[in-house]
């Protein structure tokens, strides 16, 4: 009797230590899983689509986007992604990649920018918008972020973005900072980058657009921020709105010098 109890105890202890082991390796297991997905990122499919869209004559004006000025002059697409958002004199606005693409789709191709901005993600022209942003990000893959803070509007937007980052609200009192202002934290099993400073190469701002394996969707930065706000229980941030662009400036300037891995693959 005594003997069987000690055997049971030993077995119990073994299970305990095995549990301990399993927990210790949970994050290693997740890392392994992510590594397995790196080869064969479906973002490639969207990148190819975006590349074709750039030269395709479309819209009421039946024109391509080849003369679009994304910040380095008309038609330049290499390296623009890592310098956005920035101030554009022709619109008098600070613009991110998607906001600037809207401008080009309107002025060059004759699309109605307001209509596209109102379209839900994954529908109509938003699908093309995401594909274009994915391809343009890929054209700067490996380059280091280098956002301008020379213009007063760019400096002001950084300060506004910082305030938005720390703005608590909604029924849960959440701010971006609730999850992204400390090192080494996670939500469930997801590591949370600290975005109040440079989180390093390919982390945070430097990883989007990304393919989301959980829903099989390609997300640009605008949709990434939109879903952060959704989970924060905030109201809906309009597409390419100043709030989302200002946040982009804050995150982008903080990522100064980090290499972009976009388009990435994410949970």
């Amino acid at each position, binding site marked *: 009797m005594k003997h069987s109890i000690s055997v049971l105890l030993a077995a119990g202890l073994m299970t305990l230590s095995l549990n301990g082991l399993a927990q210790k390796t949970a994050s290693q297991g997740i890392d392994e899983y992510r590594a397995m997905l790196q*080869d*064969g*990122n*479906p973002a*490639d*499919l969207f990148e*190819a*689509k975006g590349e074709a869209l750039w030269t395709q004559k479309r819209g009421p004006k039946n024109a391509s986007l080849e003369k679009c000025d994304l910040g380095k002059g008309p038609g330049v697409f290499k390296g623009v992604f890592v310098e956005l958002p920035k101030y554009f004199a022709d619109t008098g606005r600070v613009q991110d990649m998607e906001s600037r693409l809207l401008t080009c789709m309107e002025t060059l191709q004759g699309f109605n920018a307001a209509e596209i901005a109102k379209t839900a993600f994954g529908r109509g022209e938003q699908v093309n918008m995401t594909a274009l942003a994915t391809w343009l990000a890929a054209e700067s893959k490996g380059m280091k972020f280098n956002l301008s803070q020379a213009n007063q509007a760019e400096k002001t937007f950084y300060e506004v973005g910082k305030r938005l980052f720390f703005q608590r609200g909604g029924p849960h009192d959440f701010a971006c900072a609730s999850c992204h202002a400390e090192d080494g934290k996670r939500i469930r099993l997801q590591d949370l980058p600290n975005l109040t400073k440079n989180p390093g190469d390919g982390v945070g701002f430097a990883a989007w657009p990304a*393919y989301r*394996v959980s829903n*099989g969707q390609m997300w640009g930065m605008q949709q990434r921020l939109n879903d952060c706000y959704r989970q924060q229980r905030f109201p809906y941030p309009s597409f390419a709105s100043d709030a989302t662009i200002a946040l982009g400036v804050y995150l982008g300037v903080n990522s100064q010098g980090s290499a972009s891995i976009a388009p990435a693959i994410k949970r």
Partner: protein
Amino acid sequence: MADPMRIRAQAAGDKATIRVLMSHEMESGQRKDAAGKTVPAWFIQEVTATHNGKPVLSAEWGPAVSKNPFLQFAVKGAKAGDKITVTWKDNKGDTRTDEATVS
């Protein structure tokens, strides 16, 4: 029409590794829409591949293959410059073929 595939074919030693990404919803038939109605299954059922025109692979897939499917396989004797084609056909009869050159 379905979007093109991305096919990478790379020779190493006496064979070539083929990596394919396909653009497809792969709807499982288990999911319900917002109105509570089951979304009908829609998935790639057959995948075939050729090497310089000669059939080398055929596969049958079910709806449990992930959305925007990835497939990797190796063709024996394939070398740089050879042509590889991949064809898929889904349960609605839609089909798509793309070609890549082994590098």
